[in-house]
């Protein structure tokens, strides 16, 4: 089955962009909450949130398949609405988000924990609301870590293969992301196609490493307290 050569690129970009946006905001929100959460379940919740990073992608894929499949809890709800997520483009976003979330979360949380709480408190005593404190004080101070988290999430999302293949399947032109397309190009013996796609992936990865370096340079330094 030949498809347009560049279709995996567009699919991957759309998938990863969407997934990174979702992961970015949810990761920051959850990380901010967990950074200050001192409850008893702390380690347990942390473990659950990091699980997709540690599990083999095929296990993640199987879990998602059981969740979203025709006989799974979320799958049944979706069926009631007349739609299904298995073997569709949204499935690529779901798997990319799930596997990249732990990276965003871990980096963001580490960054938030590094922010000196006395500086936040100073902002609060000066009358800033929680929201303002977060946006104007905490986030800028945590920015290098948060940005690093976003780039790592992006890189992980673009490389996602096992879970994506299981949940989204191989549908050229719809769910064939770059890694999936490379795998099937090799299986089909089309080495030229495979190499071109590999070069595209390398280009994207190097570009994101460049972005990471740039973002890290934009730190705020405390000049006076």
């Amino acid at each position: 089955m030949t498809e347009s050569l560049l279709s995996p690129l567009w699919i991957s970009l759309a998938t990863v962009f969407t997934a990174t946006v979702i992961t970015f905001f949810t990761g920051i929100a959850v990380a901010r909450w967990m950074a200050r959460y001192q409850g008893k379940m702390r380690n347990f919740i942390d473990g659950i949130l990091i699980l997709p990073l540690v599990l083999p992608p095929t296990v993640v894929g199987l879990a998602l398949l059981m969740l979203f499949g025709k006989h799974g809890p979320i799958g049944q709800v979706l069926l009631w609405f007349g739609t299904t997520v298995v073997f569709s483009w949204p499935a690529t976003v779901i798997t990319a988000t799930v596997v990249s979330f732990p990276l965003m979360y871990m980096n963001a949380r580490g960054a938030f924990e590094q922010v000196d709480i006395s500086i936040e408190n100073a902002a609060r005593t000066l009358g800033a609301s929680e929201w303002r404190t977060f946006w104007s004080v905490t986030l800028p101070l945590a920015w290098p870590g948060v940005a690093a988290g976003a780039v790592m999430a992006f890189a992980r999302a673009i490389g996602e293969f096992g879970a994506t293949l299981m949940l989204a399947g191989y549908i050229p032109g719809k769910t064939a992301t770059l890694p999936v397309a490379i795998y099937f190009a090799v299986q089909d013996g089309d080495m030229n196609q495979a190499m071109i796609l590999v070069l595209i992936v390398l280009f994207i990865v190097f570009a994101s490493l460049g972005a990471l370096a740039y973002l890290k340079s934009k730190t705020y330094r405390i000049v006076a307290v």
Partner: protein
Amino acid sequence: MNSKYNKYLSIALLLVILLCIGCSAPAVTVNVSAASSLTDVLGEINALYTRANPNVTITANFAASGTLQQQIENGAPADVFISASPKQVDALQGKKLIVDNTRKDLLCNKVVLIVPADSTLGIKSFNDLTGDAVKKVSIGDPDSVPAGQYARDIFNEFGIMDALKSRLVLAGNVRQVLQYVESSNVDAGVVFLTDAKISKSVKVVADAPDDINKKVVYPVAVINTGKDRTAAFAYETFLFSDQAGAVFDKYGFTVIKK
């Protein structure tokens, strides 16, 4: 003087021991690369062969025939190759990887259209696949999976390939197609009759046209990069025996009579 004598004695002893080990029936390994559709039937046949030849270990490697062809071309250790279509063996022959005169046509199979056992979509023929109710159809990736090749041929013959293109979920091997249909995540799939037979969660709704089924041939051949050609050829000969034939029959394959 004494230690020198001892040294020669130990070397001699070592040689004798090694000779003794070598003289007992040598352990032989035969690496068989076979199409996914043969997973269950060869499991049984290999067990029969090993029981009759206890010094032989059969290492079976099942995957799509295209994948196996890739592996062999790239130097994977394979002694015997059984493909679900002549195309892959032709390619290997072109690359001079097949031992002359060992290529033989072993089996025939039928291609069928299956749906989940509890399907209510009323699919009764290949043409029904173009109906609006059919959202997803799975076939093997035609470029590397024989069952997918045959499916594409069928769709082309019925003139429905264009209509189905956007609904196709391609699989890496025919057993994956079977699993997709079993799980009801697709509405229909194209597999071999022998694959449909081993599953209780699917039902066969249509047969491929005769002219397509006639093309379904499983050739077997000995690879010339293998280590032990005698053992490999002995295994290949066993596949044509009556004993093996009975097992192939049981699973629904048609053994090609000479």
